[in-house]
């Protein structure tokens, strides 16, 4: 497989998963930026396990997921039902704390970063196929789980919380429990993504996990559509691919183009390109059962 295609596919998968990790708590109006910190913590942890302790990647990966989930769970005990603004502040603070801890931890390379992470499979080609298989399996599993969630009572409860928390509470929705569930799930996914992200680059540097990622994932969610999981699937490859296709003369205008797209979408299509109505119509079109019901 050509290298540019491999990196495009792999990074697109990471962006989809991480945007979903932000999207899911946003279903209950939580902008959970803790996920970027989770990515860094689990990534560096796995790097240290593999390089420092000689643990295999396949053991470090589940530990990365677990570390993400554990941190997400502990934090969710405090912000599971917090207002949006509080969740945002906690997320940003955690990114700062994580950076500071890593900067001062020699075992993970401190400010220099970690170099020369080993291949996850025998040869470079096998390594690439393994990373891709792993990532797209994750996309399928996580996508399936989110799809099931959206079509469940919990998904409908989340929609009610998004619109009006008090109303949702009066319907018997346990807001704190729902918030915690979504935060832990998204932190777990982010933890696993952090591990794979590092092994994709075969190195870790603190600047892999900056606020730039927050901006990228937010753009993917809001341009794609924040009301359904499918917006992310469309916007992640489109927005990432767009930057790669820009000719050099246009590349310097990239930020302006991004900004213009975002403003245009927020003004003209506030729900993003892929709206809930669009998804419902497509589902109706594709489902023979629904036709019968109609």
């Amino acid at each position: 497989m050509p290298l540019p295609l491999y990196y495009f596919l792999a990074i697109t998968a990471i962006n989809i998963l991480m945007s979903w990790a932000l999207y899911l708590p946003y279903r209950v109006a939580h902008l959970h930026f803790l996920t970027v910190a989770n990515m860094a913590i689990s990534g560096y942890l796995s790097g240290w396990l593999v390089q420092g302790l000689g643990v295999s990647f396949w053991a470090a990966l589940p530990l990365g997921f677990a570390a993400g989930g554990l941190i997400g769970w502990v934090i969710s005990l405090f912000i599971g039902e917090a207002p949006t603004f509080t969740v945002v502040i906690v997320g940003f603070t955690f990114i700062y704390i994580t950076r500071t801890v890593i900067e001062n931890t020699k075992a993970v390379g401190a400010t220099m970063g970690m170099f020369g992470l080993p291949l996850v499979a025998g040869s470079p080609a096998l390594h690439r196929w393994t990373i891709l298989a792993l990532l797209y399996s994750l996309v399928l599993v996580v996508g399936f789980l989110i799809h099931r969630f959206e079509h469940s009572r919990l998904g409908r409860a989340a929609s009610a919380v998004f619109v009006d928390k008090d109303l949702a509470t009066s319907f018997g929705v346990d807001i704190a429990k729902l918030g915690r569930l979504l935060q832990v799930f998204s932190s777990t996914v982010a933890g696993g993504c952090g591990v794979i992200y590092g092994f994709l680059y075969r190195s870790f540097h603190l600047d892999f996990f900056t606020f730039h990622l927050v901006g990228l994932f937010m753009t993917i969610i809001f341009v794609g559509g924040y009301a359904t999981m499918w917006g992310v699937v469309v916007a992640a490859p489109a927005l990432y691919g767009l930057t790669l296709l820009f000719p050099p003369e246009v590349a310097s205008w990239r930020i302006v183009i991004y900004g213009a797209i975002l403003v245009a979408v927020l003004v003209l299509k506030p729900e993003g390109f892929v709206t809930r109505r669009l998804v419902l119509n497509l589902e109706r079109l594709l489902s023979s059962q629904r036709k019968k019901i109609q």
Partner: protein
Amino acid sequence: MRKNWFVLLAVLLVLVAFVFTGCQRQGAAKKVKVKVQQWEIPFLNSLTGPIASIGEFLHWGAERAAKEINEAGGISGKPVKVIGVDTALDPQKGVVEMGKIVQTALVALGPVPEPVIMAAMPIAVENEMMSFTATTSLEYAEKFFPWSISWFPKTEDRLPPLVTAWAELNPEMKSVVQFVGNYGPWPGMVAAHKVGLEKLSLKALNNVEVPADAVTFGPLVVKALEQKPDGIIIACWPEKAAKLVQELKSRGWKNMGRILLFSSADDASLYSTGGASLNGAIIYNYINVDVDTPRWNAFKEAYAADHNGMQPPSLSTNYYDAVYMIKEAMEKTGVTGDPKKLKEERKKIAAYVADVKNFQGLLFNWDMAGGVPTNKPTYLFEIQDGMKKLVKEIRE
């Protein structure tokens, strides 16, 4: 008897002629049949984004070298073109672009800076292609040897003599505090400064960390001055370094010669922010802008013409020299550009530059040994009205 002497003389003459022509051949470029119409050197650079201004002058230097080389007949008779590839300081973009470059390029410039180097260089290593990471320290570059070379000697060898030389200018100085920004190799540089101080039995006080997002500097300066230092070393972002100096002066710091700024602070934003408040402070760096050679003067003039009269920044010569080093490597090793020989010719270039001797750089000549420069000079300057005045050259 006389006949024997004639024979001996003839044999000697033949030997001398043989040795002489042999030496000439070794030093000259190999005559080869070049298979390309134009040499293309991709430069993986940050042309947009937070360090676009640095990326611009790095690219300018590389293009300037290409222009000069083309005017003088090109590389092995063919013109060379530097192709800027923008990563916008984004590792996600850097890896895809490096993935494209390694498919066809003989050699590349960049990536810039460290986060993109760390993400993209493993691809160059895997594909056995030399890429010049000429802005980073040895501690980063050496991880990718032999497919990269370091532009700088080892930090712990290079910096202590500089700091010792600065301390010797201030014999009454007894204790020094360092301001440090936690970024990439900077903490390592601060540790090397300490070694230089300890050589003269100076006391290195507790470092004061400068956060990347610091906007007020009063508390940091108070924290430093509380330790009652006689000298200050500032190792952080240029704009913040200027603000620290201003804050120090506003709190009564008088002896400007006892302030030492590190090389990464030597950027336009240091002088535009600091202005006259920097007068008298000492800064160390690796190029001396006061060198008076036709080649350097032409470079300086061209740079000033393209940059509103500004002096070339310290890193502006790195990729200029890198392009010339590539030219020398290609010509001396007989690189043809034949796609069938891509792997072999990449190796030739890498092997040549790792141990090039007496390379004629823009400002000075130097040798490489195992990918590391062995005899590059460093300089101490005094800042006066935004200009640097040479105080001392240090050559190990």
